[in-house]
């Protein structure tokens, strides 16, 4: 119900830029997930929207109204937005209904009570209004927190890692809940998470952040198929980047590249020169034909044998994750067929690989 727009916004803590010259626009009614490794600035970006942080530079507008700019600042209580925190942030001594109705004093009593009940029904806790937070499970508490922010009918709903304290099963059901509530309310939602499965499952747009910048804002599918930067290519979906040479840009939106002793055509729009070949597990399959490699490690995961394969032609590059139908030994030779992938230009300076967080490395190959 309200567009969010950032123009060259920066926020520094000491000398560290938490948000670095970010310009972006989120259309009204969209559901955006901000995704990135710890300390990438995603929560600061969210707090800037909420008004809990003031930008050092730049301009923020919500629904066309400038809320933060040099010499202008709209306080958080006047921004008509809801926020759900990782820690639920429920007041322990107040009942569920008390917590939800707390910000609604401007309404007449009858309407306030109706709103509280509505919000509780929406999150599936219609009969819990007189419970105390300590009598609820973690998932129920987070639902109460969600109901509290919904009850105020906000234009924008901000969710700061709301599922981080919940177990995997509850996360799945809450993700579905968020989607349903987004559809029902139509409000603009921003969801911060470091878990890309969450981000892609819940949002129609995902902004990948790194070192205070938005590297790419796109649909989950585009992040996979057409990563904008090597960081995104590596961060999203257990991706790998291999240094290759682009020989020629072809007419059908592909490039001819040379990898090892082979020449293949891969999607991408890169002119002749050094490039990165971005690969996900889904782009790779074992084959009798293909590029030669050696298995450097094998583990059993999600019903597959997952091998790390070093290409013989690029022994210094990332190992590629390859799903195998059966067990294999370390040191075994095999061949890999490429289907898909994406080519990015490689600038003169070699990119330092970005260490993906542990949960990303463990992530299910898409």
């Amino acid at each position, binding site marked *: 119900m309200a567009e969010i727009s950032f123009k060259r916004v920066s926020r520094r*803590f000491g000398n560290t830029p938490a948000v670095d010259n970010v310009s972006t626009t989120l259309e009204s009614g969209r559901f955006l997930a901000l995704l990135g490794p710890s300390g990438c600035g995603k929560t600061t970006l969210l*707090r800037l929207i*909420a*008004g*809990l942080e003031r930008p050092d530079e730049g301009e923020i507008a919500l629904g066309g109204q400038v809320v933060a700019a040099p010499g202008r600042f709209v*306080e*958080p*209580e*006047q*921004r008509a*937005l*809801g*926020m759900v*925190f*990782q*820690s*639920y*942030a*429920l*007041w*322990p*001594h*107040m009942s569920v209904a*008390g917590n939800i109705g*707390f*910000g609604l*004093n*401007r309404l007449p009593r009858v309407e306030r009570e109706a709103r509280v009940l509505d919000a509780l029904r929406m999150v599936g806790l219609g009969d819990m209004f007189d419970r105390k937070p300590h009598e609820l499970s973690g998932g129920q508490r987070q639902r109460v927190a969600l109901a509290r922010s919904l009850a*105020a009918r906000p234009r924008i709903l901000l969710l700061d890692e709301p599922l981080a304290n919940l177990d995997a099963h509850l996360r799945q059901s809450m993700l579905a809940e968020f989607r349903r509530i987004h559809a029902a309310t139509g409000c603009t939602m921003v969801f911060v998470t470091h878990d890309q499965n969450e981000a892609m499952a819940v949002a129609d747009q995902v902004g990948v952040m790194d070192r205070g910048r938005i590297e790419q804002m796109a649909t989950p599918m585009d992040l996979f198929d057409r990563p904008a930067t090597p960081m995104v290519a590596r961060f999203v979906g257990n991706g790998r980047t291999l240094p290759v040479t682009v020989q020629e840009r072809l007419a059908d939106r592909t490039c001819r590249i040379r990898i090892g002793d082979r020449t293949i055509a891969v999607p991408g729009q890169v002119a002749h020169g050094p490039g990165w070949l971005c690969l996900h597990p889904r782009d790779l399959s074992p084959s009798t034909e293909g590029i030669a490699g050696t298995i450097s490690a094998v583990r059993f995961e999600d019903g597959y044998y997952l091998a790390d394969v070093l290409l013989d032609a690029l022994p210094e590059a990332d190992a590629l994750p390859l799903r195998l139908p059966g067990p294999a030994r370390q040191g075994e030779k095999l061949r890999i067929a490429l289907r898909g992938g994406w080519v990015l230009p490689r600038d003169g300076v070699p990119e330092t690989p970005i260490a993906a967080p542990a949960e990303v490395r463990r992530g299910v190959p898409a």
Partner: protein
Amino acid sequence: MLFLSQLLALIRKELLAILKDPSSRTLLFAPALMQALLFGYGATYDLTHAPFAVLDQSRSAASTEIVARLEGTGVFHRIATLENTSQIAGQIESGDALLVLQFQPDFAAKLAGGAEAPVQVILDGRNSSTAGLASAYVSSIVAGYNADQGATTPLTIVRRAWFNPNFESRWNLMPALIASLSMLQTLMLAALSVAREREQGTFDQLLVTPLTPTQILIGKALPSILVGLLQSTIIFLIIRYWFGIPMNGQVWLMYLGLVTFTTAAVGLGLSISAIALTMQQAMLYTFIVIMPLMLLSGLLTPVQNMPEILQWATYANPLRFGIDLVRRVYLEGATLREVSFDFIPLLAVAAVTLPLAAWLFRHRLS
């Protein structure tokens, strides 16, 4: 109207947080009750039991009379009768006797001859205030004896103590407790209020609700002020009716002073709270602040005895003026005009600390 109803909701929430917790509920009443009784009985400088020894080398009617008068007070108890001067040191050093009374062999002769006849009083100076009291007491008894003997001394000193005719130190100390004991709790309560919400993660939630910082400030301050006044009332009732210390002034004026004083103390507490990130920090800061506040308050030692620079520092100490105001209204029956000066520093401290706290809610020093 809206401002008020939102404010009431917040005050209700704050009071719930204080009252719903059994441990903090006990803290509201028990310490005030206990400390008032402890101070009343324990912290007294009054001379109630003074053991002494006599070395009477004159063995005259006059010396026997003086010793008898001393024992007749009920305060002085003779524990030893000494034979020679070498025994004096032992009595004092062992702490058995607070003082030793020595009449020299020519005491009676000098007295009869109209010359000055000294009575030597050796005191245990390690306990200076008690020794001072004992010495004064002995002097007054000797003076009384002189007077009865037909005025060899033309001048007699008549002491008449105002406001506290018997010089009971309890009278001086206890009205000061009405201000100082309750400050301990209100400062702590206020200091914890914001820090608790920071720690629970609910403070950001409070900031994004439609409440203004002014409302948050008043909502946080009023419950602490109420609790402070409640504690003052408990202490006041104990002093007035349990210890029976008569009140000479107007109750309304004392409460007007207490409201002002408590507001200043709460402002200080909320500023501490707004700076602190955790409850532990808030506690620590409170303890760091409370000691100098107590020492520089005139509770135990008169401000006039302090070095000038410290005397200046006491102008920033609300406790100094809180104590002064309560003492003077309670004991002297001072009027509003007479204590109006005390209100100025109190109001000044409140006028600085409360807006500072509200500002710090938003602009936490990072």
